[in-house]
């Protein structure tokens, strides 16, 4: 019947409208862009690197340090199963390995190796544009603080 074809037409138009208005689907990602900020936190100074103002404000309630300086800022693009290194200080290296995506998260293996020996290891589930802080290793008159962020790359 002609009225049936009219119904069909309206249904098709609605479906088309919904399809056009749908939220964008999650893009398929293949790599991650890891940002590593190597920061020295100390109690012997009150100088704060302007680039770290937001971090200092965030950490103030939980850490008792007054001086924060940015020692290094590195960006590494990692493919799945890819590895990257960041030298933290003489004889101390931060090793990163991107293990792969799982659901909406990227699994990242982070290791600190000192003079060839692994002293710290963690597996992180990173969300897109998320970050994690790692701190504590002694460094001169203070401690090292690492801000590790990840961005997903299609």
């Amino acid at each position, binding site marked *: *019947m*002609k*009225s049936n074809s*009219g*119904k069909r037409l*309206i249904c098709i138009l*609605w479906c088309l409208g*919904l399809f056009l*208005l*749908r*939220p964008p689907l999650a893009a398929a990602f293949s790599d991650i862009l890891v940002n590593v900020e190597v920061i020295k936190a100390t*109690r012997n100074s009150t100088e704060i690197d302007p680039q770290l103002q937001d971090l200092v*404000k*965030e*950490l103030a*309630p*939980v*850490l*008792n*340090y007054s001086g924060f300086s940015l020692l290094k800022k590195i960006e590494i693009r990692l493919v799945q199963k890819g590895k990257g290194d960041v030298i933290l200080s003489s004889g101390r290296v931060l090793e990163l390995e991107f293990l792969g995506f799982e659901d*909406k*998260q990227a*699994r990242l293996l982070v290791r600190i190796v000192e003079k060839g*020996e*692994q*002293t*710290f*290891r*963690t*597996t*992180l*589930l*990173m*969300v897109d544009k*998320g*970050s*994690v*802080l*790692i*701190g*504590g*290793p*002694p460094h001169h008159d*203070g*401690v090292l603080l690492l801000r590790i962020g*990840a961005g997903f790359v299609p």
Partner: protein
Amino acid sequence: MEKTCESLGPRLSAYLDGELAEEERRKVKKHLETCQACRELVHELEETGTILKSALSSASESEVDLTGVWEEIEERTHFGPSLWQRMKKLVGKPVVWLPATVATAAVALLLFILPILKVQVPIELSRVESVYSRTGRVMVLQTPESGRPLIWILPEAGKGGSS
């Protein structure tokens, strides 16, 4: 259509069947001479009658198969409502509007209303799946403001620390 058409229109079928009184038949006939719309309607009625008669005459006495007859009538005479009328009838039915309204409301909620209201959708955060330290002393916490994970490696017991 003129007013005369409205009053005479319903009688056209009776006119064709010869069921009208003489005076009324003359009125209709006179009107048909001047009215193109009613002449077309009469023609359509005649067509319909022809198709029906043909369908009935080809059927056996015990069984009348009218399958497809109406479609044929519609096709040949364009007797059905106009497209505009059909659309009006269609959109007036709740069976079409209800799912359409629900779907539109859902899409509008997702696209426009939720962002405006800033509904507390759980924010996904990065997580610590596992952790190991040679010192054997690690603290994992979240920063109060953003909930960002913070792993703090503590010195070995007895060695003291600076945090």
